[in-house]
């Protein structure tokens, strides 16, 4: 097997790592998904990745350092959701600057975000990608919970019928999926988005902003700007109030959120840092409610 992958695609703007792997599979001309997985992950049988996690890079030893044009760091920062989620952590920098913090990321992924169960996309972005690059691809941001509206096209994010479970063992290139299936339309979800259009639009803009800011910070070596829990604890009461009275967040009061709210009453800092994180979108929403503008909040709290 070649040490470098002869036709690994050039990553596209905002493209998820999984999508890059899908495009590699298309270009590789391999007969089976398993053959491509083997080439990418040194003999592994699954993709070792979720749509957002940089975990897969850990096993991609065989080719990643010899294929020209990119490196682990650029793939992790520009093509996974790591830059976004790293701002939502109450720990020190050092632990989380590596893609290999699997367990952490898994926890972060499960707790900071309540991910949608299927791959998502903005139809207008997909169309624009097809016309500009000749291929559509899975972007990172639409996969993050809370990113319900495309801030560029002001278009609700659509869900496909490809589940996150499916992508562990198979490649579903966006161009193929979108050409062969109609989007899954959840009417009640759509109504909910429509009724809180501005709130969701702001949240999508905030997710976009945090993602880019964190990636830039990482490259510049700037200390992580923590958005959430740690900084919000001093205003806990105001937060709780905002949380319980916001119609957007009220809808999301699932078990995880209830646990979090309960934990707010544990009046010790130590315990507060050990409990599960509040979902990222909840934290962003609270920031908006309390401070009006996420940009101002972030720059104030560095």
């Amino acid at each position: 097997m070649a040490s470098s992958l002869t036709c690994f695609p050039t990553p596209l703007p905002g493209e998820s790592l999984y999508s890059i792997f899908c495009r590699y599979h298309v270009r590789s001309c391999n007969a089976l998904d398993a053959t491509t997985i083997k080439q990418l992950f040194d003999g592994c049988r699954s993709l070792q990745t979720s749509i957002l996690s940089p975990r897969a890079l850990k096993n991609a030893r065989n080719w990643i350092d010899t294929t020209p044009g990119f490196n682990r760091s650029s793939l992790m920062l520009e093509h996974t959701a790591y830059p976004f989620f790293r701002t939502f952590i109450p720990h020190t920098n050092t632990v989380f600057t590596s893609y290999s913090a699997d367990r952490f990321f898994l926890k972060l992924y499960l707790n900071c975000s309540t991910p949608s169960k299927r791959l998502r996309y903005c139809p207008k972005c997909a169309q624009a990608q097809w016309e500009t690059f000749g291929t559509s691809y899975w972007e990172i941001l639409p996969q993050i919970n809370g990113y319900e509206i495309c801030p560029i096209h002001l278009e609700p994010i659509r869900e496909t019928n490809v589940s996150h479970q499916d992508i562990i063992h198979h490649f579903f290139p966006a161009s193929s999926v979108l050409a062969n299936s109609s989007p899954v339309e959840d009417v009640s979800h759509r109504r909910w988005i429509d009724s809180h259009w501005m709130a969701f639009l702001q949240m999508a803009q905030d997710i976009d902003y945090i993602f880019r800011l964190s990636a830039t910070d990482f490259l510049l070596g700037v200390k992580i700007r923590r958005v959430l829990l740690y900084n919000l604890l001093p205003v806990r009461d105001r937060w709780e109030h905002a949380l319980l009275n916001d119609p957007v967040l009220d809808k999301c009061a699932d078990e995880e959120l209830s646990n979090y709210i309960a934990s707010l009453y544990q009046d010790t800092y130590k315990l507060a840092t050990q409990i599960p994180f509040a979902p990222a979108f909840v934290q962003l929403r609270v920031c908006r409610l309390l401070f009006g503008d996420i940009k101002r909040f972030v720059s104030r709290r560095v």
Partner: protein
Amino acid sequence: MTNNSVHYSPETIRQFQGNPLIEALPPRLSIPEIIRQLQNQSRPEYSDEDRECSPEDRGMLVQTLDRFYQPCEKDIDIYNKIERCIRWGYADRNPFSPEFIQQQHHEYEAQIHNEGFVRYTQAYPSSSGFALLGISGLGKSTTLRHILSRYPQVIHHSRYKGIPFNETQITWIHMDCPNDGSLKGLCEVFFQHIDALLGTNYFSQYSGKSVTLNKMRIAMARIARTYHLGVIVIDEIQALAVAKDESIPVKTLNFLVTLVNTIGVPVVLVGTPRALTFLQKEFQQAKRASGQGDALWEHMQNDDAWRMFVKAIWKYQYTRNKVDLTREMSDALFEEAVGVPFLAVNIYMLVQESAIYSGEETFSPQSIHKIASEKMKLTLGHRKALLSGKEVNLKQYLDLTPFSAADFRNTIVNSLEPPAPVHISKPDLRETAVQALCSFGIDRPSATKCVNRALAKFPGCTHSSVLAREAYDDYLRNQSSSKPSAKSSSSSSKSMALTNGYAENLSGGFIGL
């Protein structure tokens, strides 16, 4: 040959500008530069001091001639054709173009849904190939090898004008048509070549009983697109003529045409005149085979070009005593080699070997005749056939069948307008066919009868060569059904003996003519 650091040369032609696949190619050369480059890479070393070596060493050194290659006017023509094929082929396959990448997805779709990829056809009007046909030994393959070796076969791109550009480009593939002429075999040979170049494992992925032919075809097309294949050269294309199933050549050639039409990869077909039997039948093939103008090579004539060639090889002389090149020597060599450079080199080597090992250390025109008749018996029939063109079984030496370039072109012209009136008048056609039969030793009245019968059988026939072949078949059928005379009996038994010998030698791989 692989190129690691890619140098992009700016293109002057507007259609080629901004295409990294073209700009990564070596710059185009002027005619003197081509000749110089071809000569430099094809002239083995020689020193007069070698004549002082022991007979054993000199016997070994004589084989140096095997590597000799003399570029000529025809080679420059081929070089220009290859240049045009590759560059224009790439012109419509700019990897930055969205359409190019969209096609990649369509082909992927076709493969996973096990569909034919033809429905995604995208026209590539400027890409085409050509056919290089000529009897064996004229140096067709050698010429192509020398010309192709000018291009780095694999180019690994990483950045182009500051933009990340991770692509692998295969500029050419030169492969032999499989012995059975099958499309499956052709695909397998292709996969093996790609694997050898890139270290991939396509052969193991796409061979075996479980893989359908359709899947192999799509895979081949996809690979050709992914790796930006510049040109596919398929040698020994006449192998299609011996396929058991008559539909095989048509299927294989149709696929190659599809490859040109859909992917835009030019295909160059190389073979002996035997390939004309199927190339002339179909318009598509004929059109594609002459996209850059057909290249139909015939054996050399005893003219200045031949003498120049002999002069070039004469330098590689290892006998102790220097033998001067005279007109008689050149003529003797021509007579025995019948204008085939490969045979001339072989005879010249054998003559020298004989002179060295016998201790004579010199040779004469008579030595050339003697050695040729004694040591090149296998090719004797072929050489005689070429020299005289008489009393030769057309089928027996189909690889040597002289062809008419005009006939080949007529196939194209006529096929362009299928139901159009026939351009060649029947009397002319009849006369040409009759003359062709006469040249094979058939008396004129018999030849006329045979041609008339053939014309009655195929009234729409417009090609003298096709008509002549049909008439000759008819002649043979009549000959075998009638009681043979003493003369014809001896002739046919001789012919049979030759036929058997030819078949054995062919199957044993001994015939290298």
